[in-house]
């Protein structure tokens, strides 16, 4: 018999920490769907009719659901990714280390700023916002 531990494909189900790790890896799955949707959107810009049918596709309930999942996944990814930055690249000002919590907060502020920018750029028409 061998003492070499065998790794099976289900090792990550055995601990909450491993599951969270795999969940983070899985955040890219709805992202891939979003990227394909956006690619279709780019090609639909060829004519107003194609753009309208792309918008109809985007409004389908299952597409909306997957994109809702993509938003949650993007925010979860951001949550994990922003914690890495102060560890990978600690910023020193003089002798003092910039507090990691502040660096995380600045990154969330950037997310918010981009959302506000997009709403300002695209939310100008007859919509509710």
């Amino acid at each position, binding site marked *: 018999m061998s003492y070499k531990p065998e790794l099976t494909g289900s090792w990550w189900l055995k601990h909450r920490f491993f599951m969270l790790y*795999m969940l983070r890896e899985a955040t890219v799955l709805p992202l891939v769907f979003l990227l394909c949707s956006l*690619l279709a959107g780019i090609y639909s810009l060829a004519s107003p009719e194609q753009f309208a049918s792309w918008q109809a596709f*985007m*409004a389908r309930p299952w597409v909306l659901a997957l994109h*809702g999942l993509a938003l949650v996944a993007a925010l979860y990814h951001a949550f994990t990714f*922003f914690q890495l930055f102060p560890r990978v690249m600690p910023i020193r000002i003089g002798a003092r280390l910039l507090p990691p919590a502040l660096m995380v907060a600045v*990154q969330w502020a950037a997310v918010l700023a981009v959302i506000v920018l997009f*709403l300002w750029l*695209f939310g100008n028409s007859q919509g509710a916002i």
Partner: protein
Amino acid sequence: MKTHAKLPSTAKSSRWHGLHLEPIWWSLFSAGGVCFAVFVPAVVLVFAILAPLGFITLDYSQIVSWYADIWGLLFTGAVICLPAFHAAHRIRHGLHDLQIGGGLLSVVICYGAAALLSVAALYGWWQLSG
């Protein structure tokens, strides 16, 4: 090499180690991760949730004129190409974690798909801008 002086000559194995592209994959993964975290939430919210639900009405001619400009190229790079390589990297290593595939085939399929998606998106921009 001082540190390897005592190793027998066979230690320099003849195995092909690839093209040492890992730094490139990791840089693309990292840059894509930043874009995924900072730009993608706004894009999903506006184009994939608020607009389809009717809270925002997208103006076709305005979007075309913006997209055909340099902004479309920046959008394509930051929201499609870089996140695509980020996703490819995670899928490649996620498959390895699940003990599926691995090796050169995973590399070719994952990054190849990201490259195809990127080229398709960039070609779409080029067509509109040209």
